[in-house]
């Protein structure tokens, strides 16, 4: 697109723009945008973030002195926040404008690729990831998601090319191997598929999502024993590409749900300290949520802070007394009982564990723990 006087406010700006980014679209060519209906966003902090970002964008948009790159950043930031808040339709024009204003910034077509991916528009997604790739030709995440889009288009050759490049960029990319295996399976090359899946599992055995397709590959190869063994280990643990841009989006919103999700991610790598920190933030935003406190208590105990864990679990159980049907209550009581026993508070432990045994008479772990607690109780 040819830059206009309106888009480049001064010769310097225009020169800078051309040198650094290539000059973006004139403002007149931008997509109309509006803040979607956010009254349904119940988390005040998230609502404020969305409102503030839009107000900042609006102010910059009205200011003719705003440089295209700055405006692109504001559009992109708004798009990222909307994406984080799961407004995937509303986010699209913001990213389109960011890309139009700053066509040299790979983030915007990359995020657009994800917006279209979530909406199931595989052609637009592939096209956006292709544009992002021209700006970062060896980025693993872009290559994996582009390969994924090609797979979903049924373009197996193109998918394999992109995914092999991803593997060249990161030879330990389980995400690339998983998709290469799928492409091979779709082509009917079960031997190659099995090899790809096995390589992926050798790198990261947690990636149980690979085991079902691996079982299909072995069955096609006539090896029922291996196929059945893989079936028994199947699961849904997925390993995505190294994807810092999407990780940023995942952490943008200050909401309890986001912090809880981050805690879950941290716990997957046994980083219980971080998990506890995220859950503490979540609890600070939703102090009345007993299940969050229970999760915080569990994370704290896993991180080794038993004293703090006991406090949180006791608080969670007090709060849950109002809604006794909560499915986690007996687990929390069991954990609390164990922690109290470990802290030498056997009397209190007995009380908690007795409650578990009362509610779940068949819980053998609880019965054994109760016996230990009773044995440890000081004689009165």
């Amino acid at each position, binding site marked *: 697109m040819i830059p206009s006087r309106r888009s480049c406010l001064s010769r310097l700006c225009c020169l800078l723009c051309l040198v650094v980014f290539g000059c973006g679209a004139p403002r007149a060519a931008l997509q109309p945008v509006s803040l979607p209906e956010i009254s349904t*966003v119940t988390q005040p902090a998230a609502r404020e973030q969305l409102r503030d970002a839009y107000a900042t964008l609006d102010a910059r948009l009205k200011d003719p002195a705003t440089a295209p790159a700055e405006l692109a950043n504001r559009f992109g930031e708004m798009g990222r926040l909307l994406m984080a*808040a*799961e407004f995937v339709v509303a986010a699209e024009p913001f990213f389109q404008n960011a890309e139009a204003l700053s066509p040299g910034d790979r983030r915007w077509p990359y995020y657009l690729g994800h917006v279209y991916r979530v909406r199931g528009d595989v052609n637009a997604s592939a096209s956006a990831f292709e544009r992002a790739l021209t700006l970062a030709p060896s980025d693993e995440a872009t290559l994996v998601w582009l390969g994924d889009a090609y797979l979903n288009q*049924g373009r197996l050759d193109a998918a394999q090319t992109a995914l092999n490049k991803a593997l060249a960029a990161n030879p330990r990319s389980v995400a690339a191997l998983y998709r290469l295996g799928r492409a091979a*399976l*779709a082509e009917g090359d079960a031997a190659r598929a099995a090899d790809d899946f096995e390589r992926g599992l050798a790198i990261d055995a947690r990636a149980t999502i690979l085991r079902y397709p691996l079982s299909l590959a072995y069955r096609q190869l006539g090896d029922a024993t291996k196929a*059945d063994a893989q079936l028994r280990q199947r699961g*849904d643990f997925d390993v995505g590409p190294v994807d810092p841009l999407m990780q940023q989006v995942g952490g943008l919103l200050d909401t309890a749900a986001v912090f809880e999700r981050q805690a879950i991610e941290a716990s997957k790598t046994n980083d219980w300290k971080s998990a506890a920190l995220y859950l503490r933030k979540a609890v600070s935003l939703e102090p009345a949520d007993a299940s969050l406190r229970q999760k915080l208590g569990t994370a704290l105990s896993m991180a080794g802070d038993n004293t703090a864990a006991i406090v949180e679990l006791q608080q969670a159980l007090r709060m849950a007394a109002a809604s006794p049907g909560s499915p986690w209550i007996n687990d929390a009581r069991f954990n609390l009982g164990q922690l109290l026993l470990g802290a030498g508070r056997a009397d209190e432990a007995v009380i908690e564990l007795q409650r578990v045994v009362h509610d779940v008479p068949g819980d053998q772990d609880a019965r054994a723990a109760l016996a230990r607690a009773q044995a440890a109780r000081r004689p009165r």
Partner: protein
Amino acid sequence: MSGKFLQTEIMPPGVALLDYDNDGDLDVFLVQSIGGSRLFRNDLNQGSLHFTDVTAESRITASLTGGYGMGAAVADVDNDGCVDLYLTYYGRNQLWRNNCDGTFTDISKRAGVDDEGWSVSASFFDYDNDGWPDLYVGHYLKYDASAGMPCLGLSGRPDYCLPSAYPVEPGRLYHNNRNGTFTDVTARAGITEFGPTLGVAAADFNNDGWIDVYVANDGRENQLWTNQRDGTFRNTALVSGSAMPADGRAEASMGVDAGDADNDGDDDLFMTELTGQGSNLYVNDGKGAFEDRSLPSGVGPASLGLTGFGAAWLDADNDGRLDLLTVNGAVVASEPTLLRQRKQLLRNLGGSAGPRFEDVGARAGAIFAFLEIGRGAAFGDIDNDGDTDVVVANNSGPARLLINNVGNRKHWVGLRVAVGARVEILRTGQPALWRRSRTDGSYASASDPRVLAGLGDLTLAPSVRVHWPDGRVETFADVPIDRYTTLKRGGGR
């Protein structure tokens, strides 16, 4: 939709096609969640396609009993020659016996099939080959609408929950006692695994002469209950490759149908999924093992942007190949523009390496571009002109009747055979076409039991080999084309 994000309100409604008055044309039963479902009589025999609301005179008071209507299944459960109607609910299911005089009687309790809970799709099929239709009722979730709390997204926006937010409700298999009652044989039959079921399709997937049942689950592995020929079943979905797509992710299967997509004599599976997942095509090897051909067939890529519900194999253009039609609509309320979706028609192009499909919705009529919240879909020749029409049941919108004006430009053969019978249509100089009489499949809906097979430009009367449900095989020579013919057991050679 109420704005309260009640899980129950996003799932219905279904629709049934049934010739309740035995006048030779298909009548329509439209499920309504509240306010009373409706039975419409097809008055085609009076000269033109026209429907009359006969709900009151039929005495069907469905949905007036406190339940929240979901779907419908049909079968002649007492073999009296009149088709009966089974209705699924969030609440207590109902079996309406057709009195053969234009009226129905609620025999749910006496028949023992007044399931309580939440069921959406059900299928009548004769699993023990005794000539009496048995019943599988797929159940969905244990959900208490009165305590219903919306789920919150990452920004705290309320929305409908994922099925994983609730416990699964077990489905039920009922054996027909041949006296107007049924017995719950679920446990005895070995059916012990359940998912949140939304679709059910029964067919003889391994070609052993015994009907199996495929259960499509929302967000969990699907099940293929293979008939062990002794009144029990075994779930062979995982070993057969039909539990989930080849990527190993259990998807949100909704509608499902079984049909012979590649004309090789076995039933292939098609099921609809969520936006971003794409529909799935599992091609049968004839022995009940499946290959996921969603990607190479084009079915998956073409449907990624849609959340599919009602679906069926149908020969939309009577060229002898089974095409696919889906009705679609999302299940998230957070962005209303995504909720309403177009219908999709995928034309089967054939192919030596397996069937390939192309989306021909854009040239199939303006209705295919019309955005609605599609749920149930029933398929059948409503105007008896030799092609498959469709009734679409929309959520929060009017039903649609899609009349096919393309198929009848080609020749066809129409057959009335016992439900469950498989037919081979033997064409001179061409491979046989395999079709099956069934009413189940799709989503919460019941379809035309007649077999309608497109013959393309062939004008020679084909022979038809019928594989009756009891295993007997008979051939009927020179079956006339471009009309319906009734084939009775013992009438062939």
